[in-house]
């Protein structure tokens, strides 16, 4: 499977700076369009979500990952395949909640924030919030309602970037097309 995923991605590799810079341009544009950071965060999450619901199809098509049996497996797929495939990084999975319904993705380096230096007047901006939206959107397409948020961010001076994911419930109704 990973092999196939590998082959799938080879052809699709591209200059990561283009992506990083484009994302940067988007964020700053939003900062111009909306007066306060909270709105920007919301907007980013929303856009991420829209990307996520489309991305999942690409993902399922290229990495023939089957249906995940539990949240832990999902976590693995996200970290080891999805992140690798799309951002070329492999975050580590940590701090499982005892209930096993909550975990953290630790990103040593986050390609979105290469070059970024947050100005002081954007202290409450969650720069990479798009990622949360993407994860949320993608998982929703495979019947998983999750809550995703940044709890640490190197941009804010934390040593690592940490994304916290919490499983909320299975969505039983309306299977979207293109699902398994």
């Amino acid at each position: 499977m990973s092999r196939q995923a590998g082959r799938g991605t080879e052809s699709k590799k591209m200059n990561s700076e283009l992506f990083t810079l484009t994302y940067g341009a988007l964020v700053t544009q939003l900062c111009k369009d909306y007066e306060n950071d909270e709105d920007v965060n919301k907007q980013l999450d929303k856009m991420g979500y829209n990307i996520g619901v489309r991305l999942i199809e690409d993902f399922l098509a290229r990495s023939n990952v089957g249906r995940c049996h539990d949240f832990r497996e999902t976590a693995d797929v996200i970290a080891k395949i999805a992140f690798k495939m799309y951002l070329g990084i492999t975050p580590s999975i940590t701090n499982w909640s005892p209930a096993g319904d909550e975990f953290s993705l630790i990103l040593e380096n986050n390609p979105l924030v290469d070059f970024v230096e947050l100005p002081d007047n954007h202290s409450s901006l969650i720069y990479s919030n798009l990622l949360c939206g993407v994860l949320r959107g993608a998982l929703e397409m495979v019947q998983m309602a999750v809550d995703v948020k940044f709890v640490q961010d190197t941009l804010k001076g934390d040593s690592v970037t940490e994304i916290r994911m919490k499983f909320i419930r299975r969505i039983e109704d309306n299977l979207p097309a293109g699902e398994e």
Partner: protein
Amino acid sequence: MAVCIAVIAKENYPLYIRSIPTENELKFHYTVHTSLDVVDEKISAMGKALVDQRELYLGLLYPTEDYKVYGYVTNSKVKFVMVVDSSNTALRDNEIRSMFRKLHNSYTDIMCNPFYNPGDRIHSRAFDNMVTSMMMQVC
């Protein structure tokens, strides 16, 4: 070891200029500004040169009694000027080169910071630290 490092915009106004605090800042501003004369000269000369000669490093712009002034110009016509103490004779050309490369890389990162507005004065911790390191660094 560099006593003054400056980044100068296409339009020749300073984007960033810092000199070692012990020295009189104004003097360096004058030195760097004047050095632009030679930079212009070299660039226009360079234009006619062959491809392999069109390198970004401009070499020694001019020596003064106390300082040596070196220059470098990016393809985006941004100039780096570095002032080195003349007494610091140990410093070799290729070391200067590598320092300019470091500057250039660091500047490129600045340009890629979405919150930086190209053409504005540079205010960046990362850049400051890099410059400081070049001023501390003993050769």
